[in-house]
């Protein structure tokens, strides 16, 4: 009985040390990363992307160069336009990895898993997304900006005053049009500013409007709009306006087969 406090301290100290000393064993080494990257180099195709899990595990970028790397945080809601197969590259043994949650989120969006391969402390698993086929990218998928702390494939568009809105024009095929937009950086959280309005026109006729208010967590700052655009090739115009114009604003749009 008298030894209980000492034993408790010894147990806490030993547990802490055990955790500290065993942590490196839960983490991948350069060789693990290189092997995973080599497999991706061989097996991944042009419609593939890599999703890191946990999303902070971006040391992968040093090794994975053949496939676009994504660090989405909400795998159920994330857009992967143009991606048919998503490689989930994960650190399953890292504390609080919650890999099962990531897999469950992918399943919930209808994705189906392939065989998992392990490289030391790394896990690599292909997922067929079964998403709709992209018929036109109306903005460049090569440019990226941060919205809601996640790098997004989107194009910066100037915000103009309501009488002289910023303008982005593109030609593409109709179908289901997907528009995503958000304010870049910390200015997204300045609640005193007004919303940004995105008017979408097809061949000069109004199609839909998306309103992007200042981000108030836990509401998303990356706003979504889906609208049906008539079939065939069209001129799409996005008019961006707000009372406060000095904010970087990013817009992404693409159409998928109906």
């Amino acid at each position, binding site marked *: 009985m008298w030894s209980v406090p000492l034993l408790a*301290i010894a147990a*806490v*100290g*030993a547990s802490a040390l055990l955790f500290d000393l065993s942590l490196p064993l839960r983490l991948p080494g350069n060789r693990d990363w290189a092997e995973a990257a080599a497999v991706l180099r061989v097996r991944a195709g042009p419609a593939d992307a890599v999703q890191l899990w946990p999303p902070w595990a971006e040391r992968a970028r040093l090794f994975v160069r053949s496939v676009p790397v994504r660090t989405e945080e909400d795998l159920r809601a994330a857009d992967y336009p143009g991606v048919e197969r998503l490689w989930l590259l994960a650190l399953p043994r890292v504390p609080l990895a919650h890999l099962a949650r990531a897999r469950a989120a992918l399943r919930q969006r209808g994705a189906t898993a392939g065989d998992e391969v392990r490289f030391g402390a790394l896990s690599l698993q292909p997922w067929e997304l079964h998403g709709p086929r992209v018929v036109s990218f109306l903005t460049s998928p090569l440019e*990226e900006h941060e919205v809601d702390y996640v*790098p997004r494939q989107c194009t910066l568009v100037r915000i103009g005053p309501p009488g002289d809105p910023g303008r982005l024009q593109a030609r593409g095929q109709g179908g289901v049009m997907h528009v995503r937009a958000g304010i870049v950086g*910390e200015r997204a959280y300045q609640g005193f500013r007004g919303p940004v309005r995105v008017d979408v026109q097809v061949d000069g006729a109004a199609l839909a409007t998306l309103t992007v208010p200042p981000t108030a967590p836990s509401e998303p700052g990356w706003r979504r709009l889906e609208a049906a655009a008539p079939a065939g090739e069209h001129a799409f115009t996005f008019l961006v306006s707000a009372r406060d114009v000095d904010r970087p604003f990013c817009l992404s749009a693409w159409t998928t087969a109906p």
Partner: protein
Amino acid sequence: MSRRLPLALAALTFAALFATQSGVGFVRDEGYYFEAAKSYEQWVALLLRAPAAAVRDTGRYWSVNFEHPGLAKLLFALSHLVFTTWLGWLPDALAWRLPALASGALLTYWLAVLGAQRSRAAAVLAPALFWCAERTFFDGHLACFDVPICALTAGVGVAWARALGLLRPWTSSSTPTPTPTSTPTPTPHGLFLGFLFGCALGVKHNAWLLPPVLIVHALLLPAPLRRRGLRTLPWLLLGPVVLFASWPLLWHDPLRHLSDWISFHTQHVHYAWYYLGRELRGPPFPIFYPLVLLALVLPLPQVMLFTAAGAKLLWDFAHRALSPLRLLELGLAGAALLPFMLRNTPIFGGIKHWLAFVALLSPEAAHLLEGSAGLAQRAGVLRSRGLLLAAAAALLPGVWQIAHVHPYGTSAYGELALGIPGAASLGMQRQYWSNNVTAVLPWLNAHAPNGARVFFHEVNVESYRAYQQAGLLRADIQYASGPWDAQYAALQWHREFRDREPETWNAFGTRTPATGLYLDETPQVVVYARPGLPGAP
């Protein structure tokens, strides 16, 4: 108990901090304080050459970094003047940091004094518990004010206790015997208390909280001690005199400068701070933020012991079983923490703003740790063995944390957070102050072509210059204002600056880093190079 043990421990602390400081990067604030110290050194040189001109021109030299009092920066300047400018013994940064290292030693000394009121073992364990964690150890190296004000808080506490006769005399081996007599406070003790309080005022505004603590402490003491306490309090009036003397900016137009100082801190901006998955940008902040953060960053044994120490002090307070000295420790610890639980005080900067909370709990925590060995003795465990086991269990995880993470102290997380990767998954601030950039400076020196422009992101221009002055960064490397203007970028991973990385990808046309600092897999500093440049992937 003699002074030898606290002095030896202080010397050991100084040696440990001195030996491990070279890898510690220059945090953003140090950049400003180095610039201030340069300006103050010029003033000191002028004072020695032309005293009247120096007294007349205080504003010109002392307006730099007007928002903090002058004493610490004056000491940085004097140290540089003596050890670098005159003697040429020390490199610039080490000379500026020397007084801060000394304040770390002083903190050890005063914690050992407080611990020694319990036992010799507690005198050793109290400072050891404080320092055996990377966050505190890291802060001990910086030419900043956090460890100095922490030390002076403990020092004022010791001086107050000495003035009230709460401390065991150095030469006696008897137990502490408060002397609640009606004899007045011996002048040297009161003078020393006033002087130390003035030094605290001259270092950082945390000192504003000390008089209220001492007043409340005096009022809660038994009658004879209360009278002595109330008679001792006027010595604190020396504090503003020391503040005035050590801060020449106040010598002209003092009311305006005092007003500027106070209003800077009462209207301080709130920096975005990542905490449990959300960015805190302004009040109201979570009430238990400082306690949760301490629990997540300190090694687990310290978390347990400090929690036990705080609980024991509060329990004994509630049951009127606190000795005057322990009551003082509780008051000082509480005053260091409580402002950050008001929900509107700026909370950025990790645990550095309430280090005194940890420090003032250390003697009680040490006592409890020692007590566990004492209890085990009754079960037949040799006391020395029990003490050794307890000390090893309490300190080794912290020693490991230092060995594993130093000098990247602002990134350290303890076992409750499940280490640095666990903290990343929990959504905690990855780092701050930009000092981790030291990890990639050798790479930049080796690869960047002559005159290369580098975007250093959170590293301010003052720290950039300090790196060049210290020889850690090549002198020809230029400071770029953004990725669009740079050939290389050294990005510090912050949630709130997440836009900088895609901005760099777009500007450089690559998403592949050239190198980086990754602690337990978590990105801390990521370096990009424009394709085709040396070192580019």
